[in-house]
């Protein structure tokens, strides 16, 4: 209850509050993209040859690809030569303790509310913070290492666990999977790697915070999570960016692999800068996220709260190969002002008795467009598979749009697929009822929207759920007269 109060109090303060620029010395390479840049990135990161080849392969394929245009989005032309593909805080070094971290950076994390400091040990969250594409600090490494869990920056993993990287990188999202994945594969600068060994339940939530700081840079991080037999991990991802007039590109790739009976929960609270009220600035968030349930009875669940970004293009997917494997997608996407989101999921049923659930709650306000796009595909051998999808849209105001584009392909007779979708406006009678009890319209909307999104918010780990609730309310401020 106290949390609720705090939220309501904080909500009153207005616009995008994560939009500060951190004054840290950054190492930025020249704008533009060509093979030399790809080589330079690889060299700067002192990568082994196989990584360079991986990048070059991706780059060559990318050059032949076109930007996808099938989404319900109006994307202004992007000049990929006007972006700098690498920006790292200069003081990057091996940090032994937090005392060595650039104080400016720590201040940044404090402002973000990231539980990075030592006292947050109690919170039980291990954090890998990625600022402008480079991983700055991974906490709790030793604690995790005792259990055999590897949780480190991607660059470190390339150096210290090259076999694992070689084995799993690009397996789930092939380099030429799509335009943005190919771009990411060519130029990604850092990210997180996580390996949970057989039979280990990760004792704490693992968390990555992404922040774009430098101007004119793109952020291309790469996350790879491998959960071996009978293991479990819950992984959190948070994103913020400063307010800038120009648009910035974020093209990340997340790959998850689960072996026999393993489970990965991946939660995202995406709050990139959405642009101002006139639609100026904001992040282009073009992300490829995919998990493969390789092992029998394994499970991958995606939970996302998407409130930021000028444009979101994102379809966290599950490929259910193992028999009895389970995929889940839970999403709340809020668009306000001139934001555009085209987001959803793919559930590909390959193994027998596979199950998937999709719950999507879209909330549109202002002049925004919010689309759900999803594919449920049941292959002939995926006998007795089940899918249930519920995609609801809520409209606040008569100048926004809510759209639903599900694709359902069923190729055997023993599977059952059900899809339901509704679109309606926020209940005026509900708002009035709250008003009549003395609750202001803005608060009433916040409450109703949070209630509407609750099914999904409940799937988030506690800490995130609180932040997500706040975000929902903040995102919708000023959306009603």
């Amino acid at each position, binding site marked *: 209850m106290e949390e609720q109060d705090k939220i309501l109090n904080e909500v009153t303060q207005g616009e995008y509050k994560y939009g500060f620029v951190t004054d840290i010395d950054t190492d930025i390479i020249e704008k533009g993209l060509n093979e030399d840049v790809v080589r330079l990135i690889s060299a700067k990161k002192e990568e082994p040859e196989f990584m360079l080849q991986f990048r070059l392969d991706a780059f060559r394929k990318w050059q032949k690809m076109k930007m996808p245009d099938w989404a319900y989005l109006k994307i202004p032309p992007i000049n990929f030569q006007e972006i700098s593909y690498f920006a790292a805080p200069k003081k990057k070094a091996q940090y032994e303790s937090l005392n060595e971290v650039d104080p400016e950076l720590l201040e940044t994390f404090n402002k973000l509310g990231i539980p990075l400091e030592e006292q947050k040990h109690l919170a039980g969250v291990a954090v890998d913070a990625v600022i402008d594409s480079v991983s700055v600090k991974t906490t709790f490494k030793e604690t995790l290492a005792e259990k055999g869990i590897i949780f480190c920056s991607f660059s470190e993993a390339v150096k210290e666990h090259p076999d694992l990287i070689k084995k799993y990188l690009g397996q789930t999202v092939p380099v030429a999977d799509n335009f943005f994945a190919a771009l990411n594969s060519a130029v990604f600068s850092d990210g997180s790697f996580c390996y949970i060994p057989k039979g280990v339940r990760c004792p704490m939530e693992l968390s990555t915070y992404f922040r774009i700081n430098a101007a004119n840079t793109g952020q291309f991080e790469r996350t790879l999570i491998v959960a071996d037999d009978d293991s479990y991990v819950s992984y959190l991802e948070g994103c913020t960016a400063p307010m800038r007039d120009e648009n910035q590109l974020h093209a990340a790739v997340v790959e998850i692999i689960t072996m026999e009976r393993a489970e990965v929960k991946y939660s995202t609270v995406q709050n990139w800068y959405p642009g101002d009220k006139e639609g100026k600035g904001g992040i282009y968030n073009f992300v490829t996220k995919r998990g493969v349930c390789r092992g029998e009875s394994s499970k991958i669940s995606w939970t996302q709260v998407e409130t930021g970004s000028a444009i979101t293009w994102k379809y966290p997917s599950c490929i259910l190969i193992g028999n009895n494997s389970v995929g889940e997608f839970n999403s709340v996407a809020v668009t306000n002002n001139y934001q555009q989101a085209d987001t959803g999921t793919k559930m590909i049923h390959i193994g027998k008795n596979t199950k998937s659930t999709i719950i999507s709650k879209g909330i549109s306000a202002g002049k925004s467009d919010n689309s759900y796009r999803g594919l449920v595909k049941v292959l002939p051998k995926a006998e007795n598979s089940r899918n249930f999808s519920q995609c609801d849209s809520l409209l606040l105001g008569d100048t926004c749009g809510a759209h*639903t584009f599900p694709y*359902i392909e069923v190729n055997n*007779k023993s599977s059952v697929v059900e899809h339901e979708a509704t679109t309606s406006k926020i209940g005026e009678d509900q708002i009035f009822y709250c008003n009549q009890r003395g609750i202001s319209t803005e608060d009433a909307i916040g409450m109703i929207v949070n209630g509407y999104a609750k099914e999904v918010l409940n799937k988030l780990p506690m800490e995130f759920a609180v932040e997500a609730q706040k975000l929902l309310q903040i995102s919708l401020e000023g959306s009603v007269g």
Partner: protein
Amino acid sequence: MSVLVEKTDFSLKLIGHYNEVKAQLETDSPALINNARKKAFQDFVLQGIPTFKNENYKYTNLQPLFFIDYSYNHIKEKSDVNLKEVFRCNVPQLDTHLVLNRNGWFCDNNNESNLPEGIIINSLRNIAKTNPELIQDFYAKIANTEEDPMVALNTAMATDGYVIYIPPNVQFDKAIQVINLMENNSDTFITQRNLIIADPGSKVSVLICDHTLNNNKYLGNSVTEVFAGENAQIDYYTIQNQHNNSATINSLFIKQERDSNVLTNTMTLHGGLIRNNLKVLLNGENCNSDILGMAFMDRKQHIDNFTQIIHAKPHCLSNQLYKNVLDDESTGVFSGRIHVVRDAQKTNAFQRNNNLLLTDQAKMNTKPQLIIDADDVKCSHGATVGQIDEEALFYIRSRGIAEKDARLMMMNAFAHEVIQEVKLEPLRDRIDELVDKRLRGEIARCHDCSYDCDC
């Protein structure tokens, strides 16, 4: 033309054919029909024959159909077909006014003349020649050639079809039964173009029966434009019963003015490949549109129902229900789009698609879509793909009914939701009977029909 270079497709073949016959088409046809050809042909060239790459034809590739060398009936043949003799698929107890089209051409010798004052049922070619004022504001006005290459091709090649005109405030109680026959001595490509105009306050029921009369390969490409004036009521039923060698692309465009009521019900009992395009534009307030369809497919049959309902004005209601039963290796597709245009407030738009897969080889692809740009709306869609409810099946069997019969009961019940919306009672009974026969695996053909084909 550069668009086509990368396609090794049959579009070029068609384009070549068109250029050959263009002069002849224009000499033979009235100006009204000719006027629409040029742009339509350009639009076809730009788009080409649709393949999987065309999002609207994602699950239905038309290219292979054009592999066959068809004959094109661009010139009307003398036909001495007597409808009453050849075709006895009448509906018992249903008094209908019969209209016959053969290979896309309107058959004058079967045109009955005992019509109430003012109602016109005639050939498109005749009307375009003798009374163009009647149809010039309607012909090729809502069938957009830029959105679908098959509509463009139809408009470019159109020669004939039927026109039904109901004057203001006339309620025609007798149902009009339009029989479209495919019957030629070689494989044939058929283009048919139709127009239905129901003036304000009028009422009409139309029953369309698509049939094939022999075993040659047929590819039909028809376009029908339907205009429902203010407060008009149109019931439009289609029964598709064609053989496995036939392919049909039917495009139906409906424009509704305020207070109008339109019911469409597309019942597909048999056919090789069937694609039904339906676009409904609710262009006035307080329109009501009921859109129903069902299909029973087996062997390698393919059904694709593609609908777009556009709510352009406030206070309209649309209700879609499509059901498919897919047996053997058949494929079903449903793609339904509800588009609520900005400011079309107080819209109620609902859509449901339910499918039964009877074998592991049968496939169903469904793509229900909502595009909503107004906020005070109630819209929903639901789609299911599954099997007969085993619990219900068990319940029926536990009362001593054989499994086979229990399944039939369940399938009949599944279909009945669509059939019950047929307002003409004798027709409803007839369809119930046809569906039951179809589900029993018997040929869904009328008892005394004289045509002899392996369907």
